[in-house]
């Protein structure tokens, strides 16, 4: 990657909120031109704090961030000109038509009337909203609003597009449709895309590289494939049933098998990393046959990003940390707006 031009360079980035909450704790990363870079983590991991700092919406407590070659803290105005930002809020104005929403955004970026005409046509075609452009945004479905919101982020042809939780609250068909658009944008416009998500599938499908973030710290950065390879084998997940003492012994016996690399317990389940899942399952049954322990449930799969996440953070992505009250309120509101048809 070093031979490519970097469009985002972050060093020691830190965010401490009033009251001393350390949301981001000295993170380093760089994003290359044309890359789709994803930040994966649960609510409260620090993703939103990073994206609001990079888009100049909140101040940087420590460290430096260069976006499109400009220092975010020193020249926020120049950064704003170079980036597009699509928040997780579905922030289209319901009282304006799609066309008016885009027009307003274009004017905020100082586009001339000539440019407005041409670009509006261009982006409306791209997000397939041309027929509905003159209807009020409140009549749009969740997916249409999201597409309008993304179109607004594209109107000034930014070098970097920031997408904060681009498919939060959308149903699966709409989500796939949005993914299609994101990939299309990169292909057609060569745009650099920085996104945050807490959906594994989304990170896996879209991103060239993923940063796994937990409690304000980046735990790993790599391509999805290499992150999965990091685990180094198949993943067997099982639930054990026993009167008590026997489980420890059963786990010891499983650990003793030559194929087994690692055994971890998480919630009610035991996760066993092995070289070859299909061949190892019968051996596991065999080795614990003489103990009182029974296997009540067992699954074998190739490692997915969920397992990667658990591997790097010691926690499942679904053990979500509770956000603030205001954050929760906003998120519910977004869900409601997204689902409305």
């Amino acid at each position, binding site marked *: 990657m070093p031979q490519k031009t970097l469009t985002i360079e972050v060093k020691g980035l830190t965010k401490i909120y009033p009251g001393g909450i350390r949301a981001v704790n000295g993170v380093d990363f760089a994003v290359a031109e044309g890359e789709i870079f994803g930040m994966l983590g649960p609510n409260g991991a620090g993703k939103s704090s990073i994206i*609001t700092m990079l*888009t*100049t*919406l909140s*101040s940087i407590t420590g460290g430096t961030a260069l976006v499109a070659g400009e220092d975010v803290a020193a020249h926020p*105005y120049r950064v*704003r*000109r170079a*980036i597009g*930002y699509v*928040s*997780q*809020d*579905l*922030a289209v*104005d319901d*009282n*304006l038509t799609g066309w*008016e929403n885009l027009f*307003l*955004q274009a*004017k*905020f*970026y*100082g586009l001339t009337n000539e440019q407005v005409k041409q670009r509006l046509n261009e982006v409306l075609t791209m997000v397939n909203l041309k027929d509905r452009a003159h209807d*009020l945004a409140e009549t749009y479905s969740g997916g249409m609003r999201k597409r309008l919101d993304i179109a*607004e982020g594209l109107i000034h042809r930014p070098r970097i597009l920031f997408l904060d939780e681009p498919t939060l609250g959308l149903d699966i068909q709409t989500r796939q449709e949005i993914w299609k658009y994101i990939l299309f944008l990169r292909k057609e416009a060569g745009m650099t895309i920085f996104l945050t998500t807490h959906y594994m599938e989304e990170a896996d499908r879209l991103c060239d590289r993923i940063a796994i973030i937990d409690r304000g710290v980046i735990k790993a950065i790599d391509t999805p494939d290499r992150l999965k390879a990091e685990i180094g084998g198949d993943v067997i997940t099982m639930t054990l049933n026993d009167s008590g003492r026997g489980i420890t012994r059963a786990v010891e016996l499983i650990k003793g098998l030559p194929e087994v690399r690692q055994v971890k317990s998480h919630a009610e389940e035991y996760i066993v990393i092995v070289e070859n899942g299909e061949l190892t399952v019968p051996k596991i049954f065999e080795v614990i046959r003489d103990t009182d322990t029974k296997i009540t449930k067992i699954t074998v799969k190739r490692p997915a990003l969920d397992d990667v996440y658990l591997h790097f953070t010691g926690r499942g992505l679904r053990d979500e940390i509770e956000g603030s009250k*205001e954050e929760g309120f*906003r998120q519910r*509101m*977004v869900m409601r707006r997204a689902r409305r048809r």
Partner: protein
Amino acid sequence: MKLGSDIYYVFWREMKRFWLQKTRVAMTIFQPLIWFALMGSTMNNLTQGMAAGSLMKRMMDGGTGPLLIKNFLDGAPDYMTYVAGGIIAMTALSGGIFGGTTVVWDRRLGFLNKMLAAPINRASIPLGKMLAIAVQNTIQVAVIVIIAMIFGVNFRTGLTGILLILFIAALFSMGMSGISLALGARLKSIEALFAIINMLFMPLIFSSPAMFPASAMPGWLLAFSHWNPVTYVVMPLRVLIYKGWLWKDILFGASVIVGFVLLTGALAVLQFRQSFS
């Protein structure tokens, strides 16, 4: 400079939203109508009764010279004419003081962040919203003037006077919206903002001569009314409605309001700069 264009497009958005909110536009007509019909008629009878009683007492006491209603009402021929200026000031006050709610909603819906992530001048957000409130208020006040005429209020300074009334009221609503927008930028919840608005609204009205003449106020309230901006809106409005072209009074009131607008506008801009640096 891009500031002018940014202000215009913030204003443009607010106006688009205004026309769509049909209930809001309807309420701007309905509310003053209620005030004139209920408050105005009742008080008209009450003040006339009071004046008649007083006159009778004076005649029996052997006093000389006629005592007219206008002595009670700061020179107004009837309560309806007296209160017209107060209702206009109250409309401007309520139009302005609720102006900050749009910031809280924009923040909650994420639209504020969208504006802040765009390369626009921060000052354009409060200034564009203030301008929109002034224009919306002008429309409301124009409707009230027509309603007042229907209820028999005679505007002594004619069309020129009415235009000046619209202008002064618009300036005042703009000034109040500056305070409200600064509060909206600072407070994050709509509930807190509404609580403060409610706490401000009634005292501002009743510590001014908007509804009742200053001569009826107890001393401490009168002293307080000198610090209340509503007093300085009501004064020139009344002069224009029924006293005539008393330039000194009009200019004095108007310049206090201009100063008020400059002050609260600066407050709103500074608070936006601080809250969203």
